[in-house]
């Protein structure tokens, strides 16, 4: 069993183990195992080893390199890394090397973590299987014939395969939680605004949040603590104090009121629903007051999301025009160059979303689609608001099914979109949510249970997640 991020950092800070050794072990594991998984699109071996040596030198000199000292981390390839290609798994960004680091990258490095590579994803984070990548798909480490989920599938797989103890992803409608559930790891979507989006290539700006993947809830809390907090370079980042995270993990759920969301249990596949109900029973056994709650508005969340997110994407992706960075396909005039570049540079799913969003925003359809979806978003947020008047946290399935087969849904976008149905509501409301592994289906595929809390309720979120982790059935690794 590989050490957790916190164990590793403790060993590095006390010079019990060198950061170089920890980072070299991660790079060797990737070299040995990633051929079959394809979690990484770029491994930064030299850069990572050099950085690890700096950390070891700092320890030797008596200074503390930080709470994540020497911990190898992987970054989804939509997080900007200065001088290192950041592709969003799209041909249109080609070999673009950002001239700056994302705030989360700066903060992870300041905490002593070492970036070992960039991970595969659905192009521009649009997808639920990591099959929409110009580099080809990532495979689920638990079953190579199945998808790892998406869009942050590379980051989820990198942690699940034991290549790194920590990774960052981005979640717009479930892109951290859904792959975490499919791969059997912990994945966190923080409160909107808790983590700076500076340097995250934008998909849908009112929904995008960066968050961690980890093998344990405590590691996820430590990673979130390192990246959270106000950043003046993101005007939508909150200036509120960061909620208590690490200390919350072991707090337990005695006296907590937990609502089991009917709509996030009843409609999902039977083995997934069964694990969610067992999780609820385990919380009652751990001292929480557990009751069922119905939030009927949630069933409209997915339809609203698949109008709002594409609408925002169609605007955000207008910047890819072949002028300032990335791919340019030559043509006799500038307008034809724009069209040729975008036609060649974007994959099919990105084109679908851009067109869907353009349509939802276009004259004659704006009121019927976009404006109506925005009002439904209000309904979803109000539904959560009413539930949180009674409950401290809400619980349900993370996904309607366990990991599906590669290729199963690529020709049917709507079927692919339906796999986000349980995760989209929290995104629309901007509230924090976490997926915690909780047992498996009869085929041995991991099941994720989702916990949601009110905005900035991360302390409650991690308290419940920690209790779920302690109550989860023991792993039956193949």
């Amino acid at each position, binding site marked *: 069993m590989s050490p957790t991020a916190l164990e590793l950092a403790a060993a590095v800070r006390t010079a019990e183990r060198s950061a170089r050794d920890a980072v070299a072990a991660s790079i060797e594991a990737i070299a040995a195992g990633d051929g079959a998984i394809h979690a990484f699109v770029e491994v930064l071996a030299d850069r990572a080893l050099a950085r690890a040596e700096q950390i070891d030198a700092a320890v030797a000199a008596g200074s503390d390199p930080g709470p994540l000292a020497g911990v190898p981390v992987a970054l989804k390839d939509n997080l900007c890394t200065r001088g290192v290609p950041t592709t969003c798994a799209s041909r249109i960004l080609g070999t673009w090397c950002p001239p700056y680091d994302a705030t989360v990258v700066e903060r992870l490095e300041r905490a002593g973590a070492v970036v070992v590579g960039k991970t595969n994803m659905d192009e521009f984070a649009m997808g639920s299987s990591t099959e929409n990548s110009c580099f080809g798909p990532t495979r689920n480490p638990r079953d190579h014939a199945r998808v790892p989920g998406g869009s942050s599938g590379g980051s989820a797989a990198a942690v699940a395969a034991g290549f790194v103890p920590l990774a960052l992803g981005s979640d717009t409608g479930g892109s951290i939680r859904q792959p975490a559930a499919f791969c059997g790891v912990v994945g966190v979507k923080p409160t*909107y605004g808790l983590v700076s989006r500076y340097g995250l290539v934008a998909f849908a700006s009112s929904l995008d949040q960066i968050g961690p993947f980890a093998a344990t809830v405590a590691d996820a809390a430590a990673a979130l603590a390192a990246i959270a907090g106000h950043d*003046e370079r993101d005007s*939508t980042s909150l200036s509120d104090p960061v909620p208590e995270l690490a200390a919350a993990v072991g707090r337990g759920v005695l006296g907590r009121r937990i609502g089991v969301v009917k709509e996030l249990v009843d409609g999902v596949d039977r083995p997934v629903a069964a694990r969610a109900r067992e999780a609820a029973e385990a919380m009652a056994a751990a001292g929480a007051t557990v009751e069922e709650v119905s939030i009927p508005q949630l069933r409209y969340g997915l339809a609203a999301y698949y109008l709002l997110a594409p609408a925002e994407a169609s605007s955000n992706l207008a910047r890819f025009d072949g*002028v300032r960075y*990335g791919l340019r396909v030559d043509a006799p005039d500038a307008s034809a160059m724009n069209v040729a570049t975008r036609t060649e540079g974007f994959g099919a799913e990105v084109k679908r979303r851009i067109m869907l969003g353009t*349509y939802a925003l276009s004259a004659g359809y704006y009121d019927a689609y976009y404006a109506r979806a925005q009002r439904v978003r209000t309904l979803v*947020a109000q539904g959560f608001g009413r539930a949180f008047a009674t409950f401290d946290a809400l619980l349900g399935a993370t996904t309607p099914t366990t990991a599906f087969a590669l290729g199963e849904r690529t020709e049917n976008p709507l079927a692919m979109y339906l796999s986000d149905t349980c995760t989209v509501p929290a995104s629309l409301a901007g509230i924090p949510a976490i997926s915690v592994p909780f047992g498996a289906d009869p085929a041995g595929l991991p099941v994720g249970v989702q916990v949601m809390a009110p905005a900035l309720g991360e302390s409650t979120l991690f308290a419940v997640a920690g209790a779920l982790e302690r109550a989860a059935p023991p792993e039956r690794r193949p």
Partner: protein
Amino acid sequence: MTPGDTRPDPRPPAIGPEQVRHVARLARLRLSDEELARFTGQLAAVLDYAAELAELDVEGLEPMAHPLPLRNVLRSDEPRPPLRRDEVLEQAPAVEDGCFCVPRILSGEG
């Protein structure tokens, strides 16, 4: 709707190939005939699913553009170092005299 119901159908009309072609043009994308047919079917399926929103009464609800009740976010207007110009230009497909360079803007017939 039951027969004899005279209320207008609140569901928006289905999308067809002409609208998809129009939207692709607005989005600066060129579609082959095969893509046009495939995308039309796929977008129609998604929009048909989204049409269920028409059954909800949203009268009087505020549209939600953003999860945070943000007003103007200001900072003090002090100069600070920008990104390095050479590093930024290095990433451009074509550069001339420190500027981004594009093909001619006006087409032959314009």
